[in-house]
């Protein structure tokens, strides 16, 4: 029906990877977009070197947020917080219609969001939640507009 919901996005929505919880997470955060009704929980195991060793998410989200959270787990495997930040910026640039400075792998499938400004916050929610978890913040949102 639309290029936004391409096969790879739908595949991640239907069978999200790393969906569930970790036995002993070292970091966790909650992302909630109350206006949309999206809520997402991300758990991480970060090693002594500060690298993401394990990632799991769960929650009730739209297909765009779910697919992003699913792809994100793969993309940030083994990265440190300092390495996640530029990737997050590259993704934000991509979905704002700019050329990303870093390769984004499967996440590049969400480039079509450039044409859906109202839906960008959905794809940014897992990123913000991951950043919050790494930064020790219990909760975050990507809704800054009003109801």
């Amino acid at each position, binding site marked *: *029906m639309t290029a936004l*919901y391409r096969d790879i996005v739908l595949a991640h929505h239907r069978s999200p990877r790393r969906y569930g919880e970790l036995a002993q997470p070292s970091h966790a955060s909650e992302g909630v977009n*109350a206006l*949309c*009704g999206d809520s997402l929980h991300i758990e991480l195991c970060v090693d002594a070197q500060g690298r993401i060793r394990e990632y799991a998410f769960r929650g009730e*989200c739209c297909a765009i947020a779910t697919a992003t959270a699913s792809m994100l787990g793969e993309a940030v495997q083994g990265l440190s917080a300092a390495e996640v930040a530029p990737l997050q910026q590259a993704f934000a640039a991509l979905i704002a219609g700019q050329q990303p400075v870093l390769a984004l792998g499967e996440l590049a499938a969400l480039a079509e969001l450039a044409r859906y400004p109202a*839906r960008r916050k959905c794809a940014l929610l897992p990123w913000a939640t991951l950043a919050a978890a790494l930064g020790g913040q219990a909760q975050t949102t990507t809704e800054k507009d009003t*109801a």
Partner: protein
Amino acid sequence: MSPAFDPLRYRADFPLLSRRVHDKPLIYFDNANTAQKPRAVIAAVEEYYRDYNANVARAVHSLGEQATAAYEGTRDKLAAFLNAGGRDQIVFTSGTTQAINLVAYSFALPRLQPGDEILVTQMEHHANIVPWQLVAGRSGATVRAAPIDDDGVLSLDRFEALLSSRVKLAAVAHVSNVIGTANPVAAIAKLCRARGIPLLVDGSQACPHQRVDLQAIGCDFYAMTGHKLFGPTGTGALWARREHLQAMPPFFGGGEMIRTVSFDGTVFADPPHKFEAGTPNIAGFIGLGAAIDYVQGVGLDRIQAYETELLAYATAALDSVPGLRLFGRAPHKAAVLSFLIEGVHAHDLATLVDHEGVALRSGHHCAHPLMQRFGVPATARASLAFYNTRDEVDAFIIALDKVRRLLA
């Protein structure tokens, strides 16, 4: 017997309805959000700016007189439209929200004491909750909500049980913007009057869909908006009983609401002008006058009869979609259908059907407490008007089926 209602005849009056979206014919099902405008409204606004743009109520030149006559003419039209009693009981506002806030600050706040209550219902729009919370916060009063059942029907018994001597004002939607329930406002007004409790009715969603007779309802305040009634945005009105308008102090001060001003004291104009400080949305109200003429021309009774039939058709069609849950099955309701499809988030649904040309609203519809009542974060909502057709409902159902196959 009146001739059959032909929506296609009226569609032709709405230029926007012939446009395409994503190369599909537009199916505009977001009428509870805002309605489209007939050519007569667009022309009235344009004519004012082109031919007689002037301020109202203060210019003695020809343009000013013409503008004032057209602008004040809308007050007469609205008074007749609502069977308001007198034109002096119609206070122009920017919409329902401003009308309710005016009552909250000018009428309720000076009367509220700690321990008092304002009674609303679980199905209210935020505009009929938040202003009361704000004045309750300032006065030590509390806002309570009368419950609704699983079909979205307000229980009159439970509403009555909550009308204690602590309740200093009740505020109820005439028609719910989310689930379409049409509340028995005349019966509610009777309960309130028997106890001397002033009642405000939020008429935003009622005016476009049914005849509103304020003399028959018997409430104290009635708030409405113009843009859902096929008029311009930034127009609306508060109707109130004369004794309330006399007693209420002005809320905004400025020009156009005074008789004389001196530093020893200012004498205010009589209602309704007492509440209308500053230069108003002149073009908008002239457009609203054209909208009222238009709707009167179609006929509210015919609109209601047609929409009731279209609602029954759309309800049956939605009930045939596997995994679809419809919220709100009140026996008396307007053509508003809130729903969810299992496994499909409301926002994905709205984005996807937009690609089929269907404009829907998704989200909480400015009614968080109602979403909580049904235990869902958001719904998709199709809200119909008299220019919608069965063919559009059919195309919408096909679009929903595509979405369901894609996501669910």
